[in-house]
């Protein structure tokens, strides 16, 4: 028997290329063009990010059901990250937030750059901070910031 097991380092890496489909293609293209879109369901609810189907009736909704929503909204829940990890979108402490954008009925998950934990509360108004270089993806929203911050 050996004293301790041998160990070896290993890195697993894949560059997955994913097709977005008819609805999310329009959603991320909208983000590139600084517009946030949602799906209007048969009952009139607006779901953000959009869905391919109606969550109430399971009907195929497709790109025709897409509507534009506002780029500002209300925080419905949040968490404060004291020590960001390498995967996180901000290097300094920040909040994960659910933001219900104006005109939407469901909240969107993203990050909020608020300066400090004391500056964040459920119900606060926030707005999109657009990324400088937008390519079509959720990170075209760099993060959210308190409304009126810029």
């Amino acid at each position, binding site marked *: 028997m050996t004293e301790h097991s041998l160990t070896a380092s290993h890195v697993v890496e894949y560059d997955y290329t994913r097709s977005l489909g008819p609805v*999310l293609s329009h959603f991320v293209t909208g983000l590139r063009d600084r517009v946030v879109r949602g799906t209007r369901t048969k009952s009139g609810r607006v779901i953000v990010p959009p869905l391919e189907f109606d969550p109430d009736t399971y009907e195929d909704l497709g790109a025709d059901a897409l509507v534009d929503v506002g780029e500002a909204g209300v925080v419905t*829940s949040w968490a404060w990250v004291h020590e960001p990890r390498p995967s996180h979108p901000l290097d300094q402490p920040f909040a*994960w937030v659910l933001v219900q954008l104006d005109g939407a009925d469901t909240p*969107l*998950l*993203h990050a909020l750059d608020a300066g400090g*934990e004391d500056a964040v509360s459920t119900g606060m108004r926030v707005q999109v901070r657009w990324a400088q270089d937008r390519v079509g993806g*959720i990170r075209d929203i760099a993060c959210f910031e308190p409304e009126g911050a810029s």
Partner: protein
Amino acid sequence: MRDVAVVAFAQAPNVRRDSDRNEVEILMPVLHEVREKVGLERDDIDFVVHGSTDFQAGMPFSFVGALDAYGAWPPINESHVEMDGAWALYEAWVKLQTGEIDTALAFAYGKGSPGDLVDVLRLQLDPYLVFPLGIDPIGMAAIQCRAYLEGVGRTEADMASVAVRDRRNGMTNPCAQVTGEFTVEGLLAEPMFVSPLRRHDCPPISDGACAVILAAGDRARDLVEHPAWVVGIDHRIEAPGLGMRDLTVSESTRIAAEKANASGTFDVAELHAPFTHQSLILEDTLGIDAAVTQVNPSGGALAANPFMVAGLTRIGEAAQRVLDGAAGRALAHATSGPCLQQNLVCVLEAREG
């Protein structure tokens, strides 16, 4: 419905890092022990199914290699789920219901230590709009936690009391990993981790494995004195998007419990709640009265949380109390996915349904 019971349960000691053994070597003694408890040879087991994820092991098709711990030659009747082992048990239960088999082994293994488990768990998120954000399941649980606290009016002290309970209970479980006497005041004095979660609100990272043997009808009666009859079992899933869910309740648990006839009182409940607030949500949803039901006598997922294993362990721990004659009616719950996305409820009784 065919009468099906849990007749044996075994588990490996849960540790933060097993530096000496690979996954097969952790599993092998567990699979031997569970068979020895009921005197079954490999040939006596009609079906073998297990739960694990290759991303945790960091090895494609690691689940095939894991069969080396059981022995698969000549070829055996076998299956695998990329789910917690509780869902492997569900598949075994379904197969027993078909009448095709009389005995089944469900097992699970999870070695959280080789990779960074937080990064591994990110891989289960929606790859289009959520994974690229870089969010991890702890951040998501923290969002759920605040929605629950503010929506329902519970407190961080309520959460700390869950950690105190589970860590204390874990002291009597030789396989538990994080145990001891703590106080609510002491835990609340600790700094925030991802607010409103402190470290004691989050599960440990564990290396572990467990196994359960199921048997039908007379086979179960012949094997043990007090079979733990599975009188109800069901699982339900919710939308992956957090914005699509009411985070203050667990609707999928509620429906699974209803379908599993998990009403009335229980002597014991083993809840797979990796985060303290999730235990509160589950206790609310399942209507558990702590005055009559002992919750998580094993210490639950806060005392040890081997990923892909801890749910099956809850069923095993709950069943063990019935097998021991200590409980007449036990409730077991398992979860999978971030923020209680998918939930399984299992009712175990000393009397057959």
